[in-house]
């Protein structure tokens, strides 16, 4: 027997022992008390990781509460967390694992629109229900029958932004700087369309790779166009250097961003350069109970975007599974019919025939002394 044959046999033996060990552990327990497994995908590392981690804390709180209240159908709820890194192919691998190996009937996520788009097809084919707590790209409306979201589509945010900038701030000549992602492109397209309809002029439209941290040349071009305002759609990681570079280059036009700017990390890191920046964000009726639970869990007051949505999503799912069981098709059918009130992310969660959240309320926040407060 030569060396490589020995190695092959060795590896195979180890693999078999491993498989036998795990398989024998599985079905030995009676099925009815096994935990109900649902999948979770979000940016636990990489771009938007701050949001992903904050969301995860809220999901853990919600799952804990469901389980302490007796679980779902007297079975505990268990979440399998997978990292989507705010990137399509990573999220797609994560979803394949959840669908094929863990065999979950529902995936909570992804967060970034690029994550959700990447696995929506696979989920639809395998009949796995998907409830995204954060994806806002308009294209996701058409992603499939099994794809839901309790976060509003950017169709609303883009036109809200355009109207606010044009009517409320009276800025008619603006420039756009946006991340080339499903989210950035999605909002930008709607914004441009609405802003032109209103009669405004877009002087410059500059995109950048989501992973890029050097936006100087784009900003240089924007500065030379001399806009009254810059509509800047970026995630935390590019926004921090981007906002600083804008100030360093002497670009003093006010900045207006999207919901991804609802991350206190940006405003503490950019310091005075962020003063006066504004952004639109979904209005969430956070109650003090939820705030104090989050504080106990993570040790500070931070509640990023999508965190309330994720918390409500877990509660909503628990309610649906309690009613119809864990069959994905039944869950899907029930989600179209369901209406959830009393949550922390919206006064009512209801889905239209595309699986989109019905209605959306936006507010504008403005940064004062390194802190974002609601603009009056």
């Amino acid at each position, binding site marked *: 027997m030569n060396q490589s044959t020995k190695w092959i046999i060795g590896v195979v033996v180890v693999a078999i022992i491993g498989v036998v060990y795990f398989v024998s552990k599985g079905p030995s327990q009676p099925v009815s008390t096994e935990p109900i497994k649902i999948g979770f995908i979000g940016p636990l*590392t990489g771009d938007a*990781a701050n949001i992903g981690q904050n969301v995860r804390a809220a999901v853990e709180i919600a799952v804990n509460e469901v389980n302490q209240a007796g679980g779902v159908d007297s079975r505990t709820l268990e979440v399998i967390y997978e990292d989507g890194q705010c990137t399509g192919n990573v999220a797609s691998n994560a979803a394949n694992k959840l669908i094929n190996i863990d065999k979950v009937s529902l995936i909570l996520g992804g967060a970034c629109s690029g994550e959700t788009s990447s696995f929506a097809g696979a989920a639809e084919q395998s009949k796995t229900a998907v409830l995204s707590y954060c994806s806002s790209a308009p294209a996701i409306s058409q992603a499939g029958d099994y794809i839901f979201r309790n976060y509003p589509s950017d169709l609303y945010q883009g036109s809200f932004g355009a109207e606010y900038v044009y009517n409320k701030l009276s800025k008619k000549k603006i420039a756009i700087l946006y991340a080339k992602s499903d989210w950035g492109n999605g909002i930008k397209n709607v914004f441009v369309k609405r802003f032109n309809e209103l009669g405004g002029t877009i002087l410059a439209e500059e995109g950048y790779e989501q992973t890029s941290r050097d936006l100087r040349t784009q900003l240089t071009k924007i500065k*030379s166009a001399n806009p009254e305002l810059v509509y800047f759609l970026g995630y935390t990681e590019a926004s921090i250097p981007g906002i600083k570079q804008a100030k360093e280059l002497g670009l003093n036009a006010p900045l207006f961003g999207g919901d991804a700017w609802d991350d206190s990390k940006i405003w503490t890191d950019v310091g005075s350069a962020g003063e006066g920046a504004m952004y639109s964000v979904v209005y969430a009726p956070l109650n003090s109970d939820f705030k104090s639970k989050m504080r106990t869990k993570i040790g500070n007051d931070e509640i990023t975007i999508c965190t309330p949505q994720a918390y409500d999503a877990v509660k909503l799912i628990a309610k649906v599974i309690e009613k119809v069981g864990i069959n994905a098709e039944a869950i899907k059918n029930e989600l179209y019919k369901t209406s959830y009130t009393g949550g922390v992310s919206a006064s009512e969660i209801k889905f239209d025939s595309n699986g989109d959240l019905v209605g959306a309320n936006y507010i504008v926040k403005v940064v004062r002394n390194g802190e974002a407060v609601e603009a009056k």
Partner: protein
Amino acid sequence: MDILPQLIINSIIAGAIYTLIALGFNLIYGATKFFNLAHGVMAAVGGYSVFYFAKTLGLDIYLAAVIGVLITGLVGYGLDRLVYSPLRKRKASNMVLLVASLGAFTAIQAIIAILFTSQFKTLSQGVGTQRIFEVFGGVITQTQIIIILAAILVMVGLVLLLYKTQLGKAVRAISDDEEVARIVGINTNKVISYTFFIGSAIAGLAGILVGFDTGIEPTMGLSLLLKGVIASIVGGIGNIYGGVFGAFLLGFVENFGIWKISGEWKDAIAFALLIIFLIFRPKGIMNK
């Protein structure tokens, strides 16, 4: 407003950063003839070392930078001793070394993410403290001037090292022909380890400076490495001057490329440059 001066400054800043990555990469490539992908993550090692010493332990920022550079050099040195050197002794092919370096890259990046979380962090102390200079109608910050000076100093230092010292002669001998160098009595493994120390330390410096200019994150190495590799290939792989030339060419091409078209084309332009060179002049501008 005329944006030409600012575009030139932006290009020079980008070129200086790419120079620092390309210099170390070329030095190591010259001696070992393999594509050390782990070179990219050294930038993150440097950046996070400074973050740890300056922000967590509160050391003086300059002292922390020096320590950061040394630590990165040591990590590079250790990587060579632990991984590459045993592989070389077994006459592993360059493909094996490449895959090993990819493994090292991923592992170190993951360790950094575990130790420091993967959140974006800034090394600078805020925007107000940064001094900004006006040059011919464009603006440049203090950090960016330091980046450019560092690139020049490192290049001069590396040339002096290679052409004026015993070690430099040995590196060049190995670069020409490792077999012969060994026959004439050069301890090639030791010399290669030194080049790993120096090359990695330079990458660490690049990471630290980028950290002050924009910020650090565990995944910062990959994009820096890609740009550094493009600069090396365009300029002439393994050639010190070529790397510098390629770096500035890349900086100018990608920043001027988006002068008249929208900014999202930046990376497309950079990689198109690489492909053009691979097809028409695969050995780069300054091939030996």
